[in-house]
């Protein structure tokens, strides 16, 4: 038997096998985790973070807010103008752009998108942000690539809001699946992952003329467990984590310092408030406490914010001042300072209201022991630690605080429906620089005016003043007048403390050294805001599918 012939065939077969196994060309895949299955893939109905991630990666917008410079840059609109009244915006659109399915993009698509967005029956959160009055929004197509959108009343920060509006195709049969962004949705394995592939018709090119994005696909793994997510990053299974907690950051810093990034203070804040709803099922004496400015100022003075920053957030936060974070350089009132810890001042405030210390127990003027409960959502370790620290701080001035962690639906029911709570500790997630985004928090008639929502008329003089100031800043385009009004609102909030602002967290993220051109920002999405310019190093340019 001549074995040489068989040896040749064997080698030939091996060679064929390597051809089959090797990818046809280097396919790069970016991987990161989202905390849950996206609730919707309709970009106009996005309300949760995972859905927002998909929208950001797939949606083409007319104007983009550059997360790094915080300036507006043209995207699908090459230029735009806002009229003097501030209620109309005219876009000149980019020409010869196609959706991912090949259908051409023009002004009709913008008109269609706006029509759907502003449909009152849709109840789009993005659309509601534009709504300045009940009357309809009008679109006027001036040319194939020119359109004017007219609102019934002035909309402050009109151009910035288009950063959130992903343009839909008026003509495509795929509807929201036909996209203008760098990626389109290729596969959705519910509960496991979402796979996005590069849009073959993406309009952007780099300086060398190469079509973007550089990375061929993105896989968003659904991973709720943050510890396993961190483990996977360290192991190289994923390429970045968009948001880290303080202790995760420190842990990562100790094992892989080149991966951990702290972009500085974010727009988010942690805060607590007292229930001031008159119809709340609380004893009258407690309602009286919570309605008293001096009481709230006392509680605020008794809380050691610096300790919270150091112990809970490991230094990756700073004491909060008021409703605007210092990260928001233009709008922040720099004349205000965080309330400092001063137990003596706290007791002074309380004495002024008739409270007294009786054998280490604080009592009000009616002899009632000062004790109340603080609810917060379970599963957030940082908030649980903050609550425990506040409990300890208040015990130093004779107040007994009960900390109760609740699952989120139960908590929401208490703070929005039954009002069966005394104090609440939550966080405010803020993606918007313009304070007008907080209008529904500060207007006393609004649902999100958490301490006492849906007031028929302002319960206090200071709330009436806040109403007036917020409405005035919402109706003028004069930036200096708006700044003055917002500064005054911050001052009032600082004085009255309906929300006791505790800390502003830092924006911390983790990035694999294999991912290039990353510039972590404070605004979301912190890491992949420039996803079309990200690239993976050649060692990992492999087929990860």
């Amino acid at each position: 038997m001549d074995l040489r012939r068989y040896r040749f065939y064997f080698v030939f077969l091996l060679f064929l096998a390597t051809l089959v196994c090797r990818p046809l060309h280097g396919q790069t895949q970016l991987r990161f985790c989202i905390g849950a299955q996206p609730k919707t893939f309709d970009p106009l109905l996005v309300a949760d973070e995972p859905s927002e991630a998909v929208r950001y990666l797939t949606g083409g917008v007319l104007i983009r807010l550059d997360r790094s410079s915080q300036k507006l840059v043209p995207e699908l609109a090459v230029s735009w103008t806002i009229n003097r009244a501030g209620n109309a915006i005219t876009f000149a659109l980019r020409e010869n752009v196609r959706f991912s399915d090949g259908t051409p993009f023009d002004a009709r698509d913008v008109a269609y998108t706006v029509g759907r967005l502003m449909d009152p029956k849709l109840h789009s959160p993005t659309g509601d942000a534009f709504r300045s009055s009940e009357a309809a929004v009008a679109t006027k197509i001036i040319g194939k690539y020119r359109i004017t959108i007219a609102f019934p009343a002035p909309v402050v920060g009109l151009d910035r809001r288009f950063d959130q509006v992903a343009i839909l195709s008026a003509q495509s049969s795929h509807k929201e699946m036909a996209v203008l962004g760098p990626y389109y949705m290729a596969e959705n394995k519910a509960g496991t992952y979402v796979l996005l592939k590069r849009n073959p018709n993406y309009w952007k090119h780099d300086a060398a003329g190469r079509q973007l994005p550089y990375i061929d696909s993105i896989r968003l793994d659904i991973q709720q467990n943050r510890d396993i997510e961190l483990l996977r990053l360290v192991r190289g299974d994923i390429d970045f984590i968009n948001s880290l907690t303080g202790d995760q950051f420190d842990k990562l810093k100790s094992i892989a310092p080149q991966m951990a990034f702290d972009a500085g203070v974010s727009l988010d804040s942690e805060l607590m408030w007292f229930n001031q709803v008159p119809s709340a099922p609380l004893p009258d004496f407690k309602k009286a406490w919570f309605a008293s400015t001096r009481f709230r100022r006392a509680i605020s003075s008794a809380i050691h914010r610096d300790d919270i920053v150091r112990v809970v957030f490991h230094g990756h936060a700073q004491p909060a001042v008021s409703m605007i974070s210092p990260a928001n350089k233009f709008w922040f009132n720099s004349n205000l300072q965080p309330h400092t810890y001063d137990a003596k001042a706290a007791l002074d405030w309380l004495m002024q209201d008739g409270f007294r210390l009786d054998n280490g127990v604080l009592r009000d003027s009616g002899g009632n022991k000062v004790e109340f409960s603080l609810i917060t959502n379970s599963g957030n370790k940082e908030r649980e630690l903050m609550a425990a620290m506040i409990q300890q701080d208040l015990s130093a001035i004779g107040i007994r605080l009960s900390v109760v962690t609740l699952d989120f639906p139960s908590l929401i029911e208490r703070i929005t429906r039954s009002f069966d709570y005394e104090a609440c500790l939550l966080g405010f997630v803020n993606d918007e620089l313009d304070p007008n985004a907080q209008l529904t928090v500060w207007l006393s008639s609004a649902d999100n005016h958490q301490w006492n929502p849906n007031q028929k008329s302002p319960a206090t003089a200071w709330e009436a003043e806040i109403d007036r100031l917020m409405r005035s800043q919402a109706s003028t385009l004069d930036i200096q007048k708006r700044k003055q009004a917002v500064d005054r609102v911050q001052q009032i909030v600082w004085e009255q403390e309906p929300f006791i602002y505790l800390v502003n967290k830092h924006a911390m993220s983790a990035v694999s050294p294999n991912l290039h051109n990353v510039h972590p920002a404070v605004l979301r999405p912190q890491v992949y805001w420039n996803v079309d310019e990200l690239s993976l190093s050649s060692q990992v340019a492999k087929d990860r599918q």
Partner: protein
Amino acid sequence: MKRLRLAAVLFLVLISGLAFSANFVAPASYARQFRDIPDAPASRQHPLGTDDLGRDRFSRVLYGTRISLLLAPAAALLSTILAALVGGIAGLAGGWIGTAVMSATDLFLSLPWLFLLLTVRAFLPLNTSPLLSVAITFALLGCLGWAGAARIVCADARTLCDSEFILSARASGSHGVHLLRRHILPNLSPILFAQFWISIPVFILAEANLAILGLGVAEPLPSWGNLIRELEGYTVTSAPPWLFVPLILLILTVSCFQLALRKDELWT
């Protein structure tokens, strides 16, 4: 075996003694936060280091032992008694009564009791003291944790009912509660003891996880469950050994219960 049993009893006595004399033995209050030294390593002042908030871990272990050592076995006993009664009655009665009881038990096993726990939390005042809250939690666990064992108890009881000594007992006039109490239940003790032994750590860990619903041990009260939860995190990969003390205590205590309380047929 005797020596092992003695050692187990001594351990349980020692740990109970330490727990109940925590006021004298603990170097600090379990709630006091030494905020300058969070996550501190073991030292003379803090033999087991400090936790995330700078609280002395040794003090928290001592005080937590009181809660867990008292309430978890009580809840386990409750669930065992319920399993014994339900399973025993079903096994003894047989027929349609037994079928009905066991069907109800199967239904009990299948229902989402999470919502009952949520409802209980909703009815409890938010200012409920931590001690009362944890007692209610363990009582609920005891009331909800019997169904699985009841099934096995029922099967066991049915087998016993056919045995000769039961037939003799019946022949000599023993019926109903007397038969159950004097003849059936003592012979069910291996299963009941297994149920008791399993329930203790299960309830301790469950109590810690019920914090997600607002039940369980509230701040600042410590328990073994919430101390063991410190291990649930990425930092466990580099956790110092003293972090494992509550877990080791729990394992040893559960093992000692097994050795101390059970007289085994194997060793007669």
